[in-house]
């Protein structure tokens, strides 16, 4: 039995009956799925039946921190939130940092399953074993910073940590986020799931500790980890000062920072207006996650025009893309303001920005007119239009209402051939990499269990040139199936499941990741993990997530990319001339399914593979 890391308890909260009960964290689940996203996906598959309405009372919302979260291992305040996504219909899993993840552990829980639906707006307060359901009527309609503050006041506890939704989640906007502190469970519309349950917020405070099985062993494992952090050429020397925005410069240099809805990627250097140099002029401090000596998270203050005085945490690289590059906005202060506004309203910055960029292209092509936009001149680069539409989105008003459920739903409503300009996979908008110049990253978008998601199988070999496990030619399609499987499995198993900040993977432990995770987990939990076990756990989690999607009707045909990526070569920059042809995508998919031991025709996991991974029961549900 585990002797540390896990608190051994899962909190089940039923909003319909307003009851809470505690269940044991099963040891086999700990062994096989590690925790975090692994627990989320296991519980989702087992408890949410096929065809469950994502916004109905039978869908569940599962918060799970990792076994490392709440210990003294740095950079491990991470939690996953898992549900059936209303945006994609597939697994919706997203992660967040800050302090909430460790409070969940200190309150005594490895995971929290939220089910049912409250009749009235409610929030749940948790202090260790004390779980209370409180009216959220007065909070309904409130933005996220105010919501967090009012709850702290109500509970007479300024140290309580709150995860909440804004108006977007309340209005069941399918790109709504959940906000905890300055951070976001941003993607896949998980905020809408909370809203559909009439759950405004969860406030949590823990006074316990997370036990450690072997303190000496942990000291040694921790030393290896922190040494790797210190030796990194990037982590402390650069990343700690600049944060993620340096990736604007890096991706622009190699011609894959998307601009103007992917029409002009590489044709101009967006880093000149949105890159690190400009960003640093707005930096006023940092706001690290709990237990993080790196502190990449930056606070930025807008300094000009109508935006002057607006403070936000971020904008992260992805948001520099969604409210900058892809919308053609070159005003850093507008990006800062939009970032703050989206977090206050509880909107995913990526999906909302890409949806606005989609509408901008349609407007410039004449598919949307001024009549459709309610008089807004929706050209690329119009930052005021972007801000207006963001507000509209959260309340389903005007043109913002048309875009509020993402590009796929908007294209279906608009018709007129607009789908070919909609940059999404499975309904999830593309993150900030033009994958025409990074083909494994493209295959990852096509096959990730959440849709177009950079966080699942990030192809750092292509983006950053890191030669692990080997050097990779970003323009080639060959070999990318195997690589993508590896990228997805290792990241799942070393960051998403144990509860480790993914930046530490790329920038510190990439060469020793499986061993590092195995050593830390063994020391903390007292269970036995080899590096191979870690990779197999990653594979198991990815297979189970895939099985969930197959059970929902997803097939190989859904593992695709937007038409523009498949047909239009990049016209400028360091990736000029490249695209992912349909033949290349097919080749990569064949290779990927083969590497995974999945049916090449359907993309479904085979019974043999599921049996090999110890989850054969799953196969019975896939016919």
């Amino acid at each position, binding site marked *: 039995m585990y002797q540390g890391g896990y608190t051994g308890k899962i909190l089940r909260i039923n909003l319909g009956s307003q009851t809470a009960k505690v269940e044991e964290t099963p040891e086999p689940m700990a062994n096989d799925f590690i925790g975090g996203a692994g627990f989320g996906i296991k519980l989702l598959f087992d408890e949410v039946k096929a065809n469950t309405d994502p916004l109905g009372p039978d869908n569940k919302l599962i918060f799970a921190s990792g076994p490392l979260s709440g210990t003294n291992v740095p950079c491990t305040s991470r939690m996953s939130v898992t549900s059936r996504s209303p945006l994609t219909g597939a697994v919706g899993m997203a992660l967040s940092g800050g302090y909430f993840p460790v409070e969940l552990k200190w309150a005594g829980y490895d995971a929290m399953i939220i089910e049912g639906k409250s009749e009235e707006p409610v929030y749940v307060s948790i202090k260790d074993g004390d779980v209370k359901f409180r009216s959220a009527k007065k909070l309904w309609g409130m933005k996220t910073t105010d919501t967090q503050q009012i709850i702290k006041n109500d509970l007479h506890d300024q140290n309580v940590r709150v995860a909440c939704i804004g108006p977007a989640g309340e209005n069941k906007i399918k790109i709504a986020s959940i906000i905890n502190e300055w951070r976001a469970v941003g993607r896949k519309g998980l905020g809408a799931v909370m809203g559909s349950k009439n759950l405004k917020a969860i406030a949590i405070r823990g006074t316990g500790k997370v036990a450690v099985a072997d303190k000496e062993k942990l000291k040694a494992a921790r030393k290896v980890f922190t040494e790797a952090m210190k030796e990194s050429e990037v982590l402390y020397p650069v990343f700690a000062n600049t944060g*993620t925005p340096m990736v604007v410069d890096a991706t622009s240099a190699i011609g894959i920072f998307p601009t103007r809805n992917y029409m002009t990627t590489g044709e101009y250097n967006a880093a000149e207006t949105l890159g690190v140099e400009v960003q640093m002029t707005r930096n006023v401090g940092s706001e690290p996650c709990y237990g993080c000596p790196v502190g990449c998270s930056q606070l930025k203050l807008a300094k000009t025009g109508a935006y002057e005085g607006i403070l936000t945490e971020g904008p992260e690289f992805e948001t520099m893309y969604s409210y900058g590059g892809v919308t053609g906005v070159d005003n850093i202060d507008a990006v800062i303001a939009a970032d703050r506004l989206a977090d206050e309203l509880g909107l995913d910055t990526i999906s909302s920005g890409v949806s606005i960029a989609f509408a901008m292209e349609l407007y410039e092509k004449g598919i949307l007119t001024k009549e459709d936009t309610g008089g807004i001149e929706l050209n690329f680069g119009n930052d005021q239009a972007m801000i207006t539409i963001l507000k509209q989105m959260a309340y389903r008003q005007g043109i913002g209402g048309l875009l509020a459920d993402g590009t796929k739903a908007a294209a279906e409503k608009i018709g007129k051939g607009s789908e070919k300009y909609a940059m999404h996979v499975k309904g999830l908008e593309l993150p900030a990499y033009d994958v025409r110049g990074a083909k494994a990253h493209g295959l990852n978008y096509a096959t990730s269990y959440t849709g177009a998601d950079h966080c699942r199988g990030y192809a750092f070999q292509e983006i*950053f040139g890191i030669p692990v496990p080997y050097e990779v030619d970003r323009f080639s399609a060959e070999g990318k199936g195997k690589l993508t499987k590896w990228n997805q499995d290792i990241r799942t198993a070393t960051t998403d499941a144990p509860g480790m900040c993914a930046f530490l993977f790329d920038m510190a432990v990439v060469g020793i990741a499986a061993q590092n995770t195995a050593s830390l987990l063994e020391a903390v939990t007292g269970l036995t993990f080899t590096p191979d076990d870690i990779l197999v756990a990653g594979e198991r989690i990815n297979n189970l997530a895939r099985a969930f999607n197959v059970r929902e009707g997803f097939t190989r045909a859904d593992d695709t990319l937007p038409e523009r990526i498949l047909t239009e070569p990049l016209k400028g920059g360091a990736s000029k001339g490249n695209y992912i042809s349909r033949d290349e995508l097919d080749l990569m998919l064949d290779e990927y399914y083969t590497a995974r031991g999945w049916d090449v025709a359907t993309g479904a996991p085979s019974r043999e593979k599921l049996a090999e991974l110890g989850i054969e029961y799953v196969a019975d549900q896939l016919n």
Partner: protein
Amino acid sequence: MIQVKVHTILNLKKILGRGDIDLTMKEGSTVKDVLMTMVETYGDSLTDQLFDSEGGLLPYIRLMVNGRDIVFLEKKMETALQEGDEVLILPPVGGG
């Protein structure tokens, strides 16, 4: 003579004072020649960022010619450059 563009970012850009440099090189000049020319012009501060104490290129420096990593070019550092080629010199990055 040929004209070659050099593009760099972040700390390397700081040392050079700008991100884009135009160089006039002899015909047949290689990637290595470009680096040597740069080092001659910008001195130790650039040398320290690119090379180890034995003169070897630091393993995390990423070099590209027209967007292709030189590890995938047959002659690697000895790749001969053509008129108008762009050489990218990228310091280590992370954090997407």
